[in-house]
């Protein structure tokens, strides 16, 4: 492996190697070994958990405990007929699903799944660490709405259009409290680099969820709304809008929307874990007695990755739990909650955090 | 890193108080059915007077200009003078707005709040010492003005005025900003004094950036003062906007725009003085000629006053053209006088105006001398002052402006000024002829006064006459507003 890398370094020169090839390899690993399988099995997990909550079995025919179900689903979606409605705006219809997926994937490039390299030349568990990472996450997280708008508008169907409109309104409204909620940890950490924010939690000796519980709560609610999940899944409310913006979609394009929704769930969960739950840190990072939890027997900071994954799974479970528990909000309730409760709450939190930061 | 002291905010207490006043009115306007017009007007008058008192007491003005808040603002005699003139103009606008806003049944709280916030923008403008702070303050003023111009939203003409003003104003702001960015690109400075210091070298290294930059900057500024050929928005906006707003645009907005024009040219671009003098000379000449010629054919008083306001921009440019001590203080003095004169004239329009823009024609003034002799006399004073005939402030101001231009060697431009003033006599006095020599008919609107309007008109008459008869102390006041010349 290292011989191969050395050969590539030889062939391309240091600039291209360090700035292009290594990131590309890392991106490929994150996507194809991390995110995509995770999404496939997240869908299965959702069906299983929902089944359990509703006293059903869930998928259990394909493979042991239904473990091969995702593969069967993917096969099905891939071979299905790809229908483009006759009076649809073709390019918008085609572009829409891609625009939902792509930004979510880009965000993974700044998420630190594990600690940075302990030694020179070691393995860092993230693709890159930039000093405006938090802003980049926020900025890219807003872009999927274009995919939804384009898809909804381009389908030339009223259900799709209404679904797209709702989605646009919802995402814009909840972007604001989400942004404000993220400023709390940002203020405490004093940096927008996600690695820096995790390290700030280590230095502080506690996860930011403790001092920033309000921000965490707002972020959680806004995150659910941003990824169009229950109880805020109005853009695809079956009872009113058939399937919302993806009513007209079939086959692989539908799969892309689906993929996008789950990818965004994972993004929101990863960001929440990084910002509020200490990222790759173990619980109670300041308590020496618990240092065995660091799992330092694992090589190359892999212990951090384990912790990150555990927290991520908890989060994803919460998402599914919500879906199994809460009824859907009405549209005006959704807006009222966003503008009248979440934004003021986030602002008050921001104000108090600022005061604490200045005087303590 | 420039020194930065948060306590310096206290030195800008007047502006901050005015902004708070505007916000308070907004808040009051949002409660229930809004505040009654009289209450809103009284509140804004209170805030304006308090602000003026603060300007006089808090803003310490020493012999040297004092740069504050990281040099983005400056306290000097120039800024203080123009702040007071603008506050006076706004206060008079508030007085003549009372009946007008009530009549139209438009919400008064927001109207007065926008007026105060626009004035806040103007005060920051004249105190700005950095292209960015000047520009953002200018935008605050402009945006509020666009909304005020369209405030009578059920009247098509008001909509038209707001839309035209907005589109053209936004374009001119963009040009101004682009020019500023080119200058910044060439010099790396936004602060006016540093910009001035960096210009000589930048003119060599930046090649064409500097001339393109300052020309675009001037286009934007000349648009704001409504100089030909950037005046096309003026007649339509002045006619369509609610008359008190028109008065405000013609007086306060123009004063503030002239203040930054002078400050940027004199303090920021002194190196380019010979270049911009040529541009200003050309613009001033065509502005005086076209403004007066176009006014000749107007039968609508508001439109006539709009062209007259264009022409007056030309006269004021003479003082900048001279770029001398006397030139600069005569600009200040003239804008002081012009504020009272033009507000008085528009107040008279308000007196005769009815809904749906009735009562704006010159013929509507027929026989006014018989029906309302005092009002007619007041209008006569304003017309004399606008033409530049003694014993009015308009005369004194014009004399000094022309004298400054002649002294600086721009005799031909001054000659154009004198000739066009003579032309203006014709159209101004067509109103006087109507008032004193024609008989009223049954269709002629009755003058509709109110205590506030009467107070405004009386103030303007007295001010116009005092400035003409005893200009001494005011000239001294204007002289204290001088800027250091290159």
């Amino acid at each position, binding site marked *: 492996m290292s011989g191969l890398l050395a050969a590539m370094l030889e062939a391309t020169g240091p*600039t*291209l190697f360090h700035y292009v090839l290594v990131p590309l390899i890392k991106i490929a690993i994150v996507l194809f070994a991390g995110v995509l399988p995770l999404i496939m099995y997240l869908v299965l997990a959702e069906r299983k958990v929902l089944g359990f909550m509703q006293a059903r079995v869930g998928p259990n025919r394909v493979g042991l405990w239904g473990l091969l179900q995702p593969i069967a689903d993917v096969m099905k979606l891939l071979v299905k007929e790809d229908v483009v409605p006759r009076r649809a705006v073709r390019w918008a219809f085609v572009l829409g699903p891609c625009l939902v997926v792509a930004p979510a994937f880009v965000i993974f490039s700044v998420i630190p799944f594990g600690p940075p390299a302990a030694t020179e030349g070691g393995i860092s568990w993230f693709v890159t660490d930039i*000093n*405006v990472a938090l*802003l*980049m996450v*926020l*900025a890219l*997280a*807003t*872009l999927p709405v*274009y995919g939804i*708008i384009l898809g909804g*508008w381009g389908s030339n169907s009223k259900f799709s259009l209404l679904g*797209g*409109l709702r989605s*646009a*309104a919802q*995402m*814009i409204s909840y*972007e604001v409290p989400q942004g404000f909620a993220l400023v709390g940890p940002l203020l405490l950490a004093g940096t*927008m680099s996600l690695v820096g924010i995790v390290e700030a939690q280590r230095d502080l000796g506690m996860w930011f969820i403790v001092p920033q519980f309000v921000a965490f709560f707002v972020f959680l609610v806004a995150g659910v709304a941003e990824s169009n999940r229950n109880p805020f899944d109005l853009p695809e409310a079956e009872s009113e809008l058939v399937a919302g913006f993806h009513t007209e979609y079939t086959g692989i394009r539908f799969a892309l929307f689906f993929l996008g929704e789950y990818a965004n769930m994972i993004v929101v969960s990863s960001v929440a874990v990084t910002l509020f739950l200490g990222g790759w840190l173990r619980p109670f990072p300041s308590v020496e007695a618990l240092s065995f939890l660091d799992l330092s027997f694992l090589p190359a900071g892999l212990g951090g990755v384990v912790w990150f994954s555990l927290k991520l799974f908890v989060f994803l479970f919460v998402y599914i739990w919500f879906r199994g528990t809460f009824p859907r909000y009405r549209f005006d309730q959704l807006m009222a909650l966003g503008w009248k409760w979440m934004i003021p709450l986030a602002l008050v939190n921001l104000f108090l955090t600022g005061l604490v930061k200045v005087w303590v | *890193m*420039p020194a*930065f002291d948060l306590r310096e905010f206290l030195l800008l207490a007047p502006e901050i108080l005015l*902004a708070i006043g*505007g*916000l308070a009115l*907004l808040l009051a306007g949002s409660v229930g059915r809004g505040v009654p017009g009289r209450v809103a007007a009284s509140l804004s008058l209170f805030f304006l007077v308090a602000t003026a008192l603060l300007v006089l007491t808090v803003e310490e003005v020493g012999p040297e200009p004092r740069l504050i*808040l*990281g*040099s*983005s*603002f400056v306290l000097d005699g120039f800024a203080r003078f123009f702040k007071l003139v603008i506050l006076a103009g706004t206060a008079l606008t508030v007085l003549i707005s009372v009946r007008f806003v009530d009549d139209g049944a438009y919400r008064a709280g*927001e109207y007065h709040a*926008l007026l105060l*916030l626009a004035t806040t*923008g103007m005060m*920051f403008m004249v105190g700005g010492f*950095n292209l*960015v*702070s000047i520009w*953002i*303050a200018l*935008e*605050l003023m402009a*945006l*509020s003005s*666009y*909304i005020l111009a*369209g*405030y009578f*939203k059920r009247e098509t003409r008001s909509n038209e005025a*707001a839309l035209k003003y907005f589109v053209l104003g936004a374009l001119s702001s963009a040009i101004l900003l682009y020019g500023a960015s*080119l200058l910044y690109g060439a010099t790396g400075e936004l602060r006016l004094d540093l910009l001035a210091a960096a210009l000589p070298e930048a003119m060599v*290294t930046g*090649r*064409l*950036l500097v001339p*393109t930059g300052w020309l675009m900057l001037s286009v934007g500024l000349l648009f704001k003062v409504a100089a030909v050929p950037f005046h096309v928005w003026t007649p339509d906006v002045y006619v369509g906007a609610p008359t008190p707003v028109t008065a405000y645009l013609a007086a306060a907005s123009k004063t503030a725009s002239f203040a930054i024009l002078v400050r940027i040219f004199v303090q920021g671009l002194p190196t380019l003085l010979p270049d911009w003098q040529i541009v200003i000379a050309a613009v001033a000449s065509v502005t005086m000629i076209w403004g007066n010629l176009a006014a000749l054919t107007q039968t609508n008083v508001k439109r006539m006053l709009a062209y007259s306001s264009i022409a007056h921009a030309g006269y004021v440019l003479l003082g900048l053209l001279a770029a001398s001590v006397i030139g600069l203080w005569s600009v200040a003095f003239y804008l002081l006088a012009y504020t009272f004169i033009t507000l008085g004239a528009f107040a008279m329009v308000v007196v005769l105006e009815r809904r749906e823009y009735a009562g704006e024609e010159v013929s509507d003034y027929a026989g006014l001398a018989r029906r309302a002799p005092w009002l007619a006399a007041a209008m006569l004073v304003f017309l004399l002052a606008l033409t530049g005939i003694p014993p009015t402030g308009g005369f004194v101001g014009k004399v000094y402006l022309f004298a400054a231009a002649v002294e600086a060697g721009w005799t031909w431009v001054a000659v154009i000024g004198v000739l066009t003033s003579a032309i203006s006599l014709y159209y101004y006095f067509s109103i006087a002829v109507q008032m004193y020599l024609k008989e009223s008919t049954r269709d002629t609107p009755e003058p509709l006064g109110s205590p506030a309007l009467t107070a405004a008109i009386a103030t303007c008459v007295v001010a116009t006459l005092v400035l003409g008869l005893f200009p001494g102390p005011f000239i001294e006041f204007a002289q204290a507003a001088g800027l250091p010349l290159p």
Partner: protein
Amino acid sequence: MIELLTQHGEAILFYAFALAAVVSAVGVISLRNPMYCALSLLVTFLAVAALFLMRHAELLGMVQLFVYGGGIMVLFLFVIMLVNLHRLREVRLFNEQVPIALVLGVLLVALFGWVFLSLPASAPGDSTALVSLDGEVVGNAKAVAWVLYTEYLLPFEIASIFLLVAMIGAVVLGRRD
């Protein structure tokens, strides 16, 4: 090929994004379907954000993406979808002033081309000023924040009043009463 990329990569990217920005800006004013105009504007914003990023103004680039790309343009699209703007197709986009406007436009382009060509050819300026404070490299976000909240604090606050006025104006003029 690799040499071309490593040596001129930045220039190639710059011209690509600049071209995208200009072409889509032309699209904004010349396309007939308002939806396409809005999307062209979005492309312009994204291309400009990329240009900011290339000059190490990361904060500006991200804010451009976030505010213009994520906020303002979504609202534009929202309004376009809500309001039936199909009538625009029958309306003439430009009126009789086209010849004059064309001449003036070409003149302006020529002027700016001339200005641009008059400048000495030089490498892109040093961008350390964008990321450093008192000579210490702190990143673009901190450098911008420092200037914004000290020297430009008051203009920044004026901008907030400006936005408030814009909002009030929209409400006052748009409300039925």
